């Protein structure tokens, strides 16, 4: 098999990796905000629940979480497992796992905004929602950009964990090719895919950071 054919097959696998990546972001970016609010809630049971959630998600391997989410419906509810449920379990596991990390990044950003900003907004008559959306959130975005970029880059590479549950994404394809072609080249090509895509993320993140660099505080 020539290099071009292998690259084509890996490219198809990468489209699946990309789907995991995008679906995870779409789900975990907003869910993380909810978790962050729960974690900062003055209603203690809710805050404790959010802490427990974050602790579990960060404290156990994502791979185990995928298996747990995959097998729980079968063992607990007796629901049959299908190829679809593998995919669904993978996406759900990625979303709930990354939401925990994003929640902590959001929290660090939100809590770093000086009290005076909230007080100025309160005295001017902004509602709590207005204060958050107009005053706090835009400043939070700027502050958390480096950490978010870090996490998003990690996510790109973590999509390869879906291999362990049998979702056929790029890393799964690479491993199959390595075995059938008795060559390490597919791994090298897969690495190049991850790296180039992360360069792209780095570039976009850099653009956003420069755009937000019009002020400092």
């Amino acid at each position, binding site marked *: 098999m020539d290099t071009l054919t292998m690259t084509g097959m890996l490219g198809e696998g990468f489209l699946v990796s990309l789907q995991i990546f995008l679906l995870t972001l779409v789900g975990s970016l907003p869910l993380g905000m909810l978790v962050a609010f729960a974690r900062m809630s003055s209603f203690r049971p809710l805050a404790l629940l959010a802490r427990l959630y974050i602790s579990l998600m960060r404290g156990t391997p994502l791979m185990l979480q995928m298996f747990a989410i995959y097998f729980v419906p079968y063992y607990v509810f007796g629901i049959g497992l299908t190829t679809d449920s593998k995919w669904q379990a993978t996406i759900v596991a990625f979303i709930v796992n990354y939401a925990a990390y994003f929640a902590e990044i959001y929290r660090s950003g939100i809590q770093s905004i000086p009290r005076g900003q909230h007080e100025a907004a309160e005295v*001017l*008559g902004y509602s709590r929602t207005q204060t958050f959306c107009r*005053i706090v959130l835009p400043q939070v975005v700027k502050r958390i950009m480096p950490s978010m970029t870090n996490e998003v880059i990690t996510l790109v590479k973590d999509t390869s964990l879906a291999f362990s549950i049998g979702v056929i994404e790029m890393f799964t394809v690479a491993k199959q090719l390595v075995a059938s072609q008795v060559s390490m080249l597919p791994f090298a090509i897969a690495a190049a895919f991850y790296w180039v895509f992360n360069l792209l993320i780095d570039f976009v993140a850099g653009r956003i950071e420069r755009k937000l660099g019009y*002020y400092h505080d």
Partner: protein
Amino acid sequence: MTSGTESVVSLEHARKSFGDTPVLRDISLSVAPGEVVAVIGPSGGGKSTLLRCLTLLERLDDGSLSYGGLNVASGGSYGEKNVLAQARQRFGLVFQNYNLFPHFSVLRNVMDAPVVVQGRPRDEAEAEARALLAKMGLAGSEDKVPCQLSGGQQQRASIARALALHPKIVYFDEPTSALDPELTAEVLRVIKGLAAERMTMVIVTHEMGFAREVADRVVFMDGGVIVEEGPAEQVMEHPREERTRAFLRQREA
């Protein structure tokens, strides 16, 4: 002292503690329209807490607070959310460290609340914001962001921001404490200009000369009580209380 009905703000028998530490002990203060009140006194005497209670950033443990005919708190219990919101429309607050919104342009800092909070037409709010900034000597800085301004300019922008909502009274919390002497002068000049226009103001300040010059009435606070108050000249030139005298002597030294 003015009676409760005609005053812009009226605080009666206010008490406030942080934990076991009483910070305000039976404070009563009312301010008449057009009056400029300077609040002086040593740090930790309760001046800032007084302003924070007047601006609803802190809640009184006991006592009553009203703005014009609007009862905000009585016996330490506060009115409904919409009452507090109405009260907030009647005062402005200028902070010691400005607290401008760093991600907004200077213009937007001034016009955002009138549009978003008061629902005024954008064009009108913008025109007024520009006029206010010009009056504060900030014409040409509308499109800058706060970090491009000096401290004195930022403080003047924050005064414009407070005035843009047409408050009946403006509070100043040590407005020049974070500034160099020369920047202090430009901010004090602006406040004096407002006093000349009969803007009702309460100014917590460490600038004794300024208090003497701009205030109609001086309130000396220490240990959570108003030790002495009266016409500026009387309190600052001929204080009756020993604590006031000691404070002023120490200030001059």
